[in-house]
């Protein structure tokens, strides 16, 4: 990836050229402590990725340097945080920090003063971000982006995917759209994995219960495995219930009789 050269390096040392010829340089890097999220958070701390990417000097901006948008991703789960960060990096050059700690979330974010915050809409700590909307000056004040957004379809997609984004008031929507598109795609992916994982777990649980129920029947009635399974299935069909539910009821009843 083009940006990795500048990761964690000092601005002056990062000046290179891209194949497209645009000049780039490193982002002014904060102090080293930025890369962690505080001493209380061992393990995760080292894993927090501060992606310091490159800046493109956009010709349209009369040679002025444009800082890459700084993004805070609030996510406790390391794997998911990585997926989101990777997705964002594919979408462009951003300055990304992950915050995993929920205690004092508003303060942690305010200290970083990012252009944009991404948070799972399913995270109850999202409400703590509302404190940021009470910041004193309008330009520091983040707004939940959906409502201001002229792009209703994008807004809807973000909400459906469970992405909440807070942006600094006045940030142009064309700068936000690629970020949100990437975040939405990743959130969908994360969501799908969550559902699949839950389904796998449930299937495993159900199989265990059915095996136990079969065992109970086999012992109690002196029958073989196939016959025990047949009995369970017949009971399920007769009562219009799921096989796993019948098995569960049998296991529970047997436990009570012990």
């Amino acid at each position, binding site marked *: 990836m083009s940006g990795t050269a500048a990761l964690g390096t000092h601005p002056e040392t990062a000046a290179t050229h891209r194949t497209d010829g645009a000049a780039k340089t490193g982002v002014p890097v904060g102090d080293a402590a930025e890369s962690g999220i505080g001493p209380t958070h061992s393990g995760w701390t080292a894993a927090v990725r501060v992606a310091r990417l490159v800046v493109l000097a956009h010709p349209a901006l009369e040679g002025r340097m444009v800082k890459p948008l700084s993004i805070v991703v609030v996510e406790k789960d390391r794997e998911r945080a990585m997926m989101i960060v990777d997705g964002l990096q594919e979408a462009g050059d951003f300055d990304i920090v992950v915050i995993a700690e*929920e*205690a*004092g979330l*508003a303060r942690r974010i305010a200290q970083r003063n990012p252009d944009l915050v991404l948070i799972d*809409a*399913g*995270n*109850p*700590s*999202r*409400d*703590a*971000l*509302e*404190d*940021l*909307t*009470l910041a004193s000056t309008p330009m520091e004040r*983040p*707004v*939940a982006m*959906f*409502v*201001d957004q002229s792009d209703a379809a994008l*807004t*809807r997609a973000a*909400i*459906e995917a469970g992405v*909440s984004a*807070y942006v600094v008031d006045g940030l142009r929507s064309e700068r936000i759209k690629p970020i949100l598109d990437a975040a939405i795609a990743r959130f969908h992916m994360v969501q799908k994995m969550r559902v699949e994982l839950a389904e796998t777990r449930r299937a495993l649980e159900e199989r265990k219960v059915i095996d136990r129920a079969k065992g109970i029947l086999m012992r109690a009635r002196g029958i073989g495995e196939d016959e025990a399974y047949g009995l369970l299935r017949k009971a399920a069909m007769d009562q219009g219930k799921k096989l796993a539910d019948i098995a569960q009821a049998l296991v529970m009843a047997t436990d009570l009789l012990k």
Partner: protein
Amino acid sequence: MSLLSLPLGYVPLVDAAPLILAEALGFAAEEGLELHLRPSPSWASLRDMLAAGQVVAAQMLAPLPVASALGLGGSTAQFEALMVLNVNGDTIGVSQALAARIRAAGHRFDFRDAGAAGQALLPAAGDQLRIGVPFPFSMHMELIRYWLDGLGLPLPAMLDIRTVPPPRMAEALAAGEIDAFCVGEPWGSVAVDAGAGSLLLPGSAIWAFAPEKVLATRRGWAEAEPALAGRLMRAVWRAGRWLGQAANASVASELLAVPGRLAVPAEVIERALTGRVLISARGEERRSPGLITFHAGAANFPWRSQAAWIGARLARRHGLAPEPAIAAARAVFRSDLYRLHLAQAGAELPSASDKVEGSLADPTPAPSVQGRLILAPDRFFDARVFDPDEPMR
């Protein structure tokens, strides 16, 4: 007859009960509705869901739609309150360490006298007092600010009222992130059971008749869909009336306790519904009959003066011009739509849509255009009144 499907949003709290039970007990079906209830983990997400039309109506913190009307908060969407879902329902708790200091100073935790509790709290807190509330625009925040400001004592140098999600409240208190909280039930009782703190006061000790949650819709929806709005309001109102009968408390607790609704033990929910509260892990019980009210005293009527009070408080704290703020706030509480849609359900309808907030110490008969109206006590702890005709007094 097939039922009309209506998506509705809520945050899992005891005061979501009128919405949950409107569906569960068939009040919605009686009105030809099937409510699809969607829980939200946070108020900001619920606000988004409502703004984007994922739900057509939602349980909402009473000050939240008022804040939106005043241009406060991370949203520019506009909402209105069709009715009040419940009056009161919050508790104020303190950490074990702070509770011990308050007790040492001689306070008895009577769970009643907010003035005395405040006089004991502030010296015990010393220089630093960090209080968790669920949202910056909430009755919790308003009650805490009104209470602290009205005590007539110097406030701690480091007073920090910050947002903590209700399910994290007990944890934050136990971890020493906060010293106190104001939160809706069942989360205060959950904190007690977790051994994280003791309950100092019910919210009703600060304002005896505080509109806590409202049924909110996007601005204009109820007028664009009058038939639907009316059906929904009547179903929710009947659920509130059912909840208001003391004999139903334990059934209601069981219905609310299940996974997919509140997912906390029925016994914990029942404390709020019966007003018999455990205030400490030692098992001290306090009686607080008005801890939460779903029906009595025309609890569901959205008084313009309640909205005006919220607007005046928000304007003062956020440096807005008071008169336009109060006017914008009043427009949010749609007492006109309440009259329109609940007349046929037999709801008590007061003659006026404003009252002098804080003036009633006892249940008081009041003029009504329908029903026999007895207004419930609505005193503030400091005995001040808020007159909507002289809001700046």
